């Protein structure tokens, strides 16, 4: 998280807010409710309390305005900027402006959910700047979240409490929902959901995030899966790059999504039975594409299947037991990929390095070996 420095914060815990005007995109009660809920996101974790006034000047003045609107930070029409807000202080301090040219909504998937945009902007009104944590509410990009199940992420809680402290009424309350945290590449207990290559890069998936490791750069870059593939699932089971079709395929439960670049391929998601996997297979644990044979191995429990990418059929003689081919691999496979002719199989917090052609095990490494901790 980051703050605006110079200790820009309110010197009082009771703040007033006023909704100066409304957007035609939503009913007035929907706007009222979205704003109130967005303020409560911050009140829940601090001593801050918010009171609405309908006349005069409030600490936080909220308005919907288009283009140039008098504060020398013009909006850009329907486009990139959704809203902005000012750090705590007198006058425009704390005020929030929504770009009237954007389409706001109460809860549907079409348009930007006003609650989410408002909760972010109120973070600025209270003294938070943007966060580097891609899972934080204070990350600059808008990303969809279900407003009914939203829980303020840990990074944002730490940020706002660094300014105002915890909520004295609920601090220590054991049944309040645990703030979600963003996976840490250097957590030695990290168990990855899936690993795949993508045009020479490596992608490491965990929960709603993935790390992209570029051959030329030192540190893998973490981002939300939906930042790149808005239609993609999170908490996936498996992933692989089909170099045959120049696509990345993501698996979750009985379904598979195929992406070409940023775009979901027409006709996806499909059922995994479309590969010819038996109907009884409810999910796959891992998938890897073998460049040499142009076969894809699907790992299911302690067995694996072989799929011929060229013929688009399952190979005969499968499933085989994993430990029949991969010596020393007795645990469940959690992820797999091939890189520079080596085959890497993840099982729990470990990564096994093999030669697929000989089945020989070279090294036993940590899960975050490629994440360069």
């Amino acid at each position: 998280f980051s703050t605006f420095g110079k200790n820009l914060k309110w010197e009082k815990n009771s703040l007033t807010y006023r909704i100066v005007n409304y957007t035609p995109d939503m009913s007035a009660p929907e706007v009222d409710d979205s704003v109130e809920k967005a303020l409560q996101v911050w009140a829940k974790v601090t001593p801050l309390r918010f009171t609405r006034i309908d006349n005069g000047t409030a600490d936080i003045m909220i308005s919907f305005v288009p283009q140039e609107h008098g504060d020398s930070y013009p909006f850009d029409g329907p486009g990139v900027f959704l809203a902005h807000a000012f750090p705590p202080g007198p006058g425009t301090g704390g005020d929030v402006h929504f770009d009237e040219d954007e389409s706001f909504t109460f809860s549907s998937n079409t348009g930007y959910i006003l609650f989410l945009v408002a909760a972010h902007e109120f973070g600025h009104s209270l003294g938070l700047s943007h966060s580097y944590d891609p899972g934080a509410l204070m990350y600059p990009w808008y990303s969809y979240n279900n407003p009914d199940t939203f829980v303020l992420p840990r990074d944002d809680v730490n940020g706002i409490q660094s300014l105002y402290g915890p909520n004295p009424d609920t601090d220590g309350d054991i049944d309040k929902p645990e703030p979600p945290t963003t996976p840490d590449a250097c957590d030695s207990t990290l168990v990855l959901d899936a690993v795949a290559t993508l045009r020479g890069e490596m992608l490491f998936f965990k929960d709603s995030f993935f790390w992209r490791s570029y051959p030329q750069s030192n540190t893998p870059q973490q981002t939300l899966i939906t930042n790149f593939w808005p239609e993609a699932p999170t908490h996936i089971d498996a992933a692989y790059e089909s170099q045959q079709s120049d696509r990345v395929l993501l698996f979750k439960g009985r379904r598979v999504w195929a992406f070409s670049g940023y775009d979901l391929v027409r006709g996806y998601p499909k059922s995994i039975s479309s590969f010819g996997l038996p109907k009884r297979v409810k999910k796959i644990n891992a998938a890897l594409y073998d460049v040499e044979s142009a076969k894809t191995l699907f790992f299911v429990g302690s067995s694996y299947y072989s799929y011929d990418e060229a013929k688009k059929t399952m190979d005969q003689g499968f499933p085989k037991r994993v430990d029949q081919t991969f010596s020393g691999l007795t645990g469940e496979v959690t992820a797999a990929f091939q890189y520079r002719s080596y085959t890497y199989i993840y099982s729990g917090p470990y990564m096994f390095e093999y030669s697929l052609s000989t089945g020989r095990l070279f090294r036993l490494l940590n899960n975050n070996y490629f994440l360069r901790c």
Partner: protein
Amino acid sequence: CVPVSQVTEQDEHDAESYLKRFFNLTEEKGPTGRRGVSAVSSKLSEMQRFFGLQIAGTLDDDTMTMMKKPRCGVPDTNIAS
């Protein structure tokens, strides 16, 4: 091979506007920095680092795509001033 990026003059103009708005890019005066790294290039690297992109200091498809994503209008560099 990865498709050659089609960075147009318009893209460069848009990128400079984005960097001015969000990463405090100021008009370049006089000779570029000692290492010849232009202000635009170092601000591009700053943005690419912030958003988890490949830190190349040059405008590529990924970076242009990310500049078009809906976002908050508050700058990303510390704006205490």
